[in-house]
């Protein structure tokens, strides 16, 4: 069967070889897709009579201005700090709960329905309430980010622990491994790719948490920058933080994706 699969792949490869190498073709199409979006956006903005529609070039200019004035840096720092601390607290607590849920059946029975239910709900709804309770400072933002991050990490960690191959656990048992050692040698390493998946999925949620919290508190941060600029109809400037968030999200996401793929690859190699 393996041979058949190989044959198939090389069969199509053989026919394609006459044309442009498919990797090159793929890259070209891929790049032209992105270029197309930027060009269409720019042309649309230039044709539009509304002053509210701004093109990519104006956003680039506005970025320069906001960097020069130091505004962007100041607000980004505030968001980044809350995001980082929230991420840390949320993922550590998600990890701990996820490991317990995955390893101990009684914990799973008790907590699983609540965790799944809260994961399925639009948690943004509690942001205004939390801010009333915790105030307009960074504490609110940190708590909100941790809550947002907690669920994907906990759920994926639990799933990862449950996926630990049973024969590995039996192997550990047969060597009379103590529970702590089993965790170190078997459970955590084999759940690790899942944990990274959880982190990857929580990046986007964490960013949403920070931004919406900053919309609400309206004191500082990239969310506040978006809100204040758009309220004054400075559309280009209000898009700058959006781009920053986009890049931040994309970079973190791809980084974690790479880590994850690396782990899975190494595992397959075994």
């Amino acid at each position, binding site marked *: 069967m393996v041979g058949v699969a190989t044959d*198939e792949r090389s069969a199509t490869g053989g026919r394609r070889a006459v044309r442009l190498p498919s990797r090159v*073709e*793929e890259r070209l*199409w*891929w*790049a*032209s*897709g*992105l270029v*197309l*979006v930027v060009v269409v956006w720019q042309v649309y903005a230039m044709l539009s009579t*509304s002053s*509210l*529609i701004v093109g990519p070039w104006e956003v680039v200019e506005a970025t320069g201005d906001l960097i020069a004035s130091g505004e962007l840096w100041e607000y980004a720092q505030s968001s980044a700090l809350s995001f980082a601390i929230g991420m840390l607290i949320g993922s550590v607590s998600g990890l701990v709960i996820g490991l317990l849920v995955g390893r101990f*059946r*009684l914990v799973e*029975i*008790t*907590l699983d*329905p*609540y965790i799944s*239910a*809260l994961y*399925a*709900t*639009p948690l*943004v*709804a*509690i942001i*205004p*309430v939390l*801010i*009333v*309770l915790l105030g307009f400072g960074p504490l609110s933002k940190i708590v909100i980010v941790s809550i947002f991050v907690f669920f994907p990490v906990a759920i994926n960690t639990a799933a990862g622990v*449950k996926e630990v191959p049973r024969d590995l656990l039996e192997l550990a048992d047969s060597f009379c491994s103590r529970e702590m050692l089993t965790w170190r040698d078997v459970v955590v390493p084999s759940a690790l790719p899942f944990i990274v998946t959880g982190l990857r999925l929580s990046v*986007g949620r964490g*960013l*949403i948490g920070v*931004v*919406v919290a900053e*919309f*609400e508190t309206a004191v500082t941060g*990239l*969310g506040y920058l*978006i*809100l204040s600029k*758009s*309220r004054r*109809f400075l*559309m280009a400037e*209000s*898009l700058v*933080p*959006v781009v920053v*968030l*986009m890049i931040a*999200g*994309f970079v973190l*996401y791809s980084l974690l994706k790479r880590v994850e793929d690396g782990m899975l690859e190494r595992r397959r190699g075994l």
Partner: protein
Amino acid sequence: MDRAEDPRLVWGLRIGFALVVLAVWQVTAVRLGENFFAAPGAIVSSAVALLRSGELMHYFVPTLEVLAWGFLLGLAVGIPIGLAIGRWRRLYWVSEGPINLFYTTPLAAVIPIILVILGFGTTTKVFVVFAFVVFSVLINSAAGVRNVDGDLLELARSYGSSEPMLWREILIPSALPFVLVGIRIGIGRALIGAVVAEFYAGISGVGYLIIYYSNRFDVASALVPVGMLIALGVGSTAGLKRLQEWLTPWASEARV
């Protein structure tokens, strides 16, 4: 681990846990100030009051309308485009970059900007929900078609299948479980989009209700619509799981 547990134990643990949480919450809230820290009892009485006055329904119905329209539009656009992208690789290559870009963008961040451009009406909210839904549906539909078993494609070829029959017999059934996952993720995102849009746009919907009571420091009342959204999220997810089992029995059973 796979053995069936005694249901008395299962429900005993679950309900017991909930009771402990509620009790701790109630005691703490009463100590620290019942209204501000919204004890469970206070939330229940607020809920009764909001339901009696009809206020809750008055704000909930517009939200449901916005959700329904945006969601359906998202499906109507996302599924066909996603399927097409999954089938034709040039289309996939050219759209992959932009789609991932939009999908990874924290859309919530753009909502204030959309509101300024499109105005504060219902259309804007529907658009926001649509934007939140469409990408997850689209990406998953495309993945479904791309994940079709190559062996089955070859089977179809060896039997001389036409393109319409290929879609009908192989591509669509094979993509269906993925499309349903996209829809499930889409519902979650739709709720987020609707709520955040209502935080800032106009004076209707549960989102507005939450803001209204929060700004009055009436946490108990603010948590009532939150509870309703939780119920909506959990309910729709459970409903979709049922739908999934019913529509794609081969996919769920095979995993057992």
